């Protein structure tokens, strides 16, 4: 997502920030609910990543990775709703306890996330 011109760069970044504030808070909320229901934030991370892939797929099909629409919904909201950093730490946790889930969990997230994005693209 490159800015079309210097004049659009700042508004695009502001839209990214606004979308991401909401996306990050939504992910945290999923983690809180998941922690309460399942005693682990992991299902919340999974759900956040899959929903984000669907949202990003929709945004990609509409705006193709550019413009203000992609900035707020794709790069901002879906970008921050999804995460690799928490996922990587959860994989590390799993590898210390239940070894096969350390592989199965990220693979399942990739397959389900691709399916969610595939509802709108490809």
């Amino acid at each position, binding site marked *: *997502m490159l800015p079309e011109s210097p004049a659009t760069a700042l508004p695009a970044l502001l839209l990214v920030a606004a979308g991401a504030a909401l996306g990050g808070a939504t*992910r945290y909320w999923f983690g809180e609910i998941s922690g309460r229901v399942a005693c682990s934030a992991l299902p919340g991370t999974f759900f956040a990543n899959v929903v984000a892939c669907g*949202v*990003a797929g929709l945004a990609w099909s509409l705006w193709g990775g550019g413009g203000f629409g992609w900035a707020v919904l794709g*790069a901002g909201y879906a970008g*921050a709703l999804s995460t690799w950093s*928490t996922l990587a730490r959860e994989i590390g946790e799993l590898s210390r306890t239940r070894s096969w889930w350390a592989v199965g969990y990220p693979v399942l997230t*990739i397959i389900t996330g691709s399916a969610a994005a595939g509802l709108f693209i490809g």
Partner: protein
Amino acid sequence: MRAYGLVAAGSAAGAVLRVLAGWLAAPLLGDAWSTVAINVIGCFAIGIAAGLMMASPAVARWWPFVGPGLLGGFTTFSAFIVLLDGLSELEAAFVVVATLGLCPLAAWLGEKAVTRAP
């Protein structure tokens, strides 16, 4: 509510940094590989952050801003998935394997780097 505010503010800053890093890296690496690089860097950073926070309760108060906020917003799973669509099958496989291998490794290395006994 404090945690939500910190996560939202951190995520906004992290996502803006991700987009800026993408603008810098995409002409060199392309969109998909710059996303791989961003995710690996973010995972290394969350390892460092987690290691530091575990050592200091005072710093741990800011975990929602740094961990799920800044680094959660900086790294992205959705762009990683969406960008696979534009790649050849072979390159997509490389991107998936590289990310799957390097992200957990980077998080582990980051944590090791700051928690190793002096």
